[in-house]
């Protein structure tokens, strides 16, 4: 059994045929992951007790002849912004270095209910703020395919674990591209579902109108199965959607003949030549499969970064106000008055990027600037969403690059925040509109760096998105 290439289906077959037990698989994967981890720093910690007891429950079900669930025995890596009861959850921050959550996120409870085995927590940019995983207080993650390069971010640890084979699948979180961009950089599949499709109960809040939990996997099918288990209404998250969850595997039939796909011309002008060539070849593959691809216009694209960095930072400045030294583990020793305690705890606890975003968010919400910045950005957001609505009246799905370039070098952009922000240009638009979007591998550059193709669909039309991604994946592997 090669752990690095196990799929959800293969694990299920192996368990049901009694070729291995879930406990065997969990132990072996933990051993492998612990040995491999120094090369990438993908995991911040492992949760062997929790993993082995979940695996033992799966084995007991199989022994009793019961259905062990759709994720039976599947080793899952979880981004460290998602709460796990009794397992330290740091959000990549010094502030929460010792924080042990008193409850599980709904996504965690659901995936364990489905037989999933949580192996450990993965490294990420502090409070999911970043595009390279260099903003973690616990050191950066290295791209398993190119150790001198970033894995992308902020879900860089989850992407690296799936690419490296130290987990079969992973959970990430996405606010402006934090699942799709690292998936693209590490050559795996990453899905940002429709806003509200997956409960955020237990997801540490960054920007509440934009935050998502989503799956990362080595195949489209595995990502679809993982999303299936975590999606759906949750009474503990008022923003989770009532819409019924369709059977996503039904759409993995390879039949895309006659589908109309839009290719936004605004997404093609700033690509490196290799990324441009790979995307063009990917589009050609979709044409050969029978899709009708046409160029479309998304005129508001150039305004998306500005819009996003106002809305996301404004919301972040409110959400991060709770880290004040009273409730969450870290308190500055340099505390005189109550006010000093707040200021020093936050000054010492937050890293540079969090501080920068708190500052920007506080500024755009402050008296005299609210209308000019925050309200204006919310109006532009409505126009960006309108661009997508117009596009989806003409096409079934949109195909686009995920990032203008492949994985960049560690340290290359860390001192230039605006350059780092601008790298999120093609993922931020879909986040602002709240539509489902995903990254699927599209090939590699001459240097061997993966490039992802993005597929975007209407609200709740994950089936069409998965149908296109799955057909594309099959065509590429043939």
């Amino acid at each position, binding site marked *: 059994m090669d752990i690095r290439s196990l799929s959800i289906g293969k694990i299920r077959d192996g368990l049901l045929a009694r070729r291995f037990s879930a406990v065997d698989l969990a132990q072996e994967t933990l051993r492998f992951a612990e040995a491999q981890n120094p090369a990438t720093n993908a995991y911040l910690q492992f949760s062997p007790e929790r993993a082995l007891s979940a695996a033992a429950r799966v084995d007991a079900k199989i022994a009793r002849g019961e259905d062990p669930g759709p994720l039976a025995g599947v080793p899952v890596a979880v981004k460290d912004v998602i709460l796990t009861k009794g397992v330290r959850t740091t959000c990549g921050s010094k502030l929460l270095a010792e924080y*042990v959550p008193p409850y599980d996120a709904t996504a965690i409870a659901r995936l364990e209910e489905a037989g999933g085995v949580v192996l450990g927590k993965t490294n990420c940019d502090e409070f999911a703020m970043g595009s390279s995983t260099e903003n973690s207080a616990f050191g950066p993650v290295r791209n398993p395919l190119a150790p001198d390069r970033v894995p992308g971010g902020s879900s860089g640890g989850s992407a690296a674990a799936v690419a490296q084979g130290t987990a079969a699948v992973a959970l990430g979180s996405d606010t402006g591209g934090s699942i799709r961009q690292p998936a693209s950089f590490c050559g795996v599949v990453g899905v940002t579902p429709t806003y509200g499709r997956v409960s955020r109960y237990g997801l540490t809040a960054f920007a509440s*109108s934009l935050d998502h939990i989503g799956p990362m996997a080595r195949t489209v099918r595995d990502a679809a199965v993982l999303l299936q288990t975590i999606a759906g209404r949750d009474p503990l998250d*008022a923003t989770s959607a009532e819409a019924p969850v369709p059977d996503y595997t039904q759409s993995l039939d390879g039949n895309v003949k006659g589908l109309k796909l839009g290719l936004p011309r605004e997404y093609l002008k700033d690509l490196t030549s290799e990324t441009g060539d790979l995307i063009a070849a990917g589009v050609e593959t979709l044409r050969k499969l029978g899709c009708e691809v046409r160029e479309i216009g998304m005129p508001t694209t150039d305004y998306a970064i500005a819009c996003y960095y106002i809305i996301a930072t404004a919301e972040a400045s409110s959400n991060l106000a709770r880290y004040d030294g*009273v409730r969450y583990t870290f308190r500055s020793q340099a505390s005189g008055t109550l006010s000093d*305690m707040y200021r020093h705890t936050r000054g010492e606890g937050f890293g540079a990027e969090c*501080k920068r975003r708190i500052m920007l968010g506080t500024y755009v919400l402050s008296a005299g600037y609210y209308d000019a*910045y925050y309200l204006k950005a919310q109006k532009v957001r*409505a126009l960006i969403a309108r661009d997508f609505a117009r596009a989806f009246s003409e096409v079934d799905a949109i195909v686009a690059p995920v990032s203008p370039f492949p994985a960049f070098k560690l340290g290359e952009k860390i001192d230039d925040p605006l350059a780092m922000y601008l790298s999120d240009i093609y993922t931020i638009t879909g986040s602002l509109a*709240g539509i489902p979007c995903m990254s699927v591998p599209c090939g590699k550059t001459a240097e061997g760096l993966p490039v992802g193709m993005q597929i975007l669909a209407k609200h709740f039309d994950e089936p069409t998105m998965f149908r296109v991604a799955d057909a594309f994946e099959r065509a590429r592997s043939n």
Partner: protein
Amino acid sequence: MKITEKEVRYVADLANLSLSEPEVHKFQADLDEILGHVERLNEIDTTGVEPMAQVLYAGGDTARLRADRERPPLGTETALANAPQPGNGYFKVPKVIER
């Protein structure tokens, strides 16, 4: 210049964030550059456009309240488990009022 060091200090104060002098210089430059980029939003005519506070699906509610039923709370001990300074069932903070 979009933002001065004085304004940076004022905003840090609003955010309850202590900043070192080098941080004040750095954030002045960073925020100035970012706010310069953000200026481009003024190129778009948004007359008559409703601000979008939440992603709105076509049809159907986006937010729904759960039934108002009692659920067991976390309990004081669990809620205080991560407190830097718990005491007598409370979160302790530096003294606010002098007797």
